[in-house]
């Protein structure tokens, strides 16, 4: 299903079942209006979220990825979110080198009772992604201008072109 043209961007959410998915439910029960872009994938624990899922989403053209788990100390599985925090923080710091704006990825903690907070998170993140616009796509060929630029670099001398 293609992203709804012009109105939405593809935003993927990974939420732990016990806190954040519950928080999203709580927001729903309270009828807290939210942007519709986000599609939530439910996992048992933020510790189940492989940073590679996030990269896979970007590989597939996601404009933004949002992860949310239980607040530290509140993990249903005692420690899962501590591992998640380390993994996700490193991913966040890694992204710039790939050329994916790290602002396109965010992770946070929302408890099952924090409906208003969830609404706020969704709204803030969605607004941020809309400001950034659609993500660059790996599947799209390089533009002519880009090709010419790379060729120019080659002609300037051998080398990987990472130094300019």
């Amino acid at each position, binding site marked *: 299903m293609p992203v709804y043209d012009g109105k939405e961007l593809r935003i993927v959410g990974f939420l732990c079942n016990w806190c954040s998915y519950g928080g999203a439910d709580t927001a729903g029960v309270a009828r807290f209006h939210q942007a519709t872009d986000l599609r939530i994938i439910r996992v048992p624990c933020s510790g189940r979220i492989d940073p590679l899922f996030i990269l896979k989403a970007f590989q597939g053209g996601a404009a933004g990825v949002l992860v949310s788990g239980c607040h530290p100390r509140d993990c249903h599985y005692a420690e899962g979110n*501590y591992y998640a925090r380390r993994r996700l923080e490193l991913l966040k710091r*890694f992204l*710039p*080198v790939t050329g*994916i704006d790290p602002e396109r990825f965010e992770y946070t903690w929302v408890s099952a009772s924090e409906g208003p907070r969830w609404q706020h998170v969704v709204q803030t993140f969605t607004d941020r992604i809309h400001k950034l616009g659609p993500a*660059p796509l*790996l599947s799209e060929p*390089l533009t002519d201008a880009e090709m010419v630029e*790379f060729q120019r670099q080659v002609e300037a001398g051998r080398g990987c*072109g990472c130094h300019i």
Partner: protein
Amino acid sequence: MKGLEELKDKIHEILPDLDLVIGWEQGYDGLHATPLFIKTPEDVDRLIIGPLCVHNLATYLPGLKDKKVGVIVKGCDSRAVIELLQEKLINKDNVVILGLTCDGVINLTKLGRKIGSLGAVDDVKVEGEKLNVVIGDQQHNIAFSEVKQDKCENCIYPNALVFDHFIGEPVDRVENVGAEHQSLSDFEGKSFDQRFAFWKHEMSRCIRCHACRNACPMCVCRDHCVAMTRNPHWLSQENNVAENWMFQMIHVMHLTGRCVECGECERACPMDIPLMLLRRQMNRGVREVFDYEAGIDAQNRPPLLTFKVEEDNISEREW
């Protein structure tokens, strides 16, 4: 690297108790060294050390788990041995480490940039800081510092960090301490879009030969790498930009907090894709967040295998 004779003597001494010792010998031309697997005293004669000995021989250790192996390591290589020990991927009882001191090894890609084709090199000599490359009747004199591996440029571990036998005298090297390689900050001069396009361009060249993976001393999954499976199906076998990119992402992620920056992935890449940029960025994060460097102390716990309830350098983002 110094102490070839001392090293040979030591190998002669320990070889009877070992199945083999891994070192280097001259390869098919004057420019290439190649790993040498010493099994007999006669093999020892073929041993060389020096700036051509680029290969990180620790890569072979996990595959020789059931053998008693001697391995010759430079400072950088020794970090891979430490990381392997740290992760209990090799058994220290089965490994005898012959530590060297090193003043840098050659980067053939950079040499190629200097002198064009490397296809017909007859001989290479190192005289102090000069590298003398003989191609037929041509002579190229090049400053060694300009054709060293990146990792050698700001090396702070010239001496093996772990060893059973140290060969030669350890050298001091204090300049450039902790400096991050220039390439990363250079790369940051590009916009996000330029960086993204850069990788698309680089990945279009990748032939998915997995040399980067198989040359990596930390890629111990080898035959069980997720890059080739359908369960889980992380990647298709299609050799295209998106899938090649994803493979490199998997490689980086699986090296998080484990990469010792030996540079073997980039060296092994037949297509000269600058993979170390990715490694350096990840290692920068690891350093900043956990004040951690892989392969320094076998007692350290890799950062992703543990946690702190209150992380020192991770702050909750404001919403």
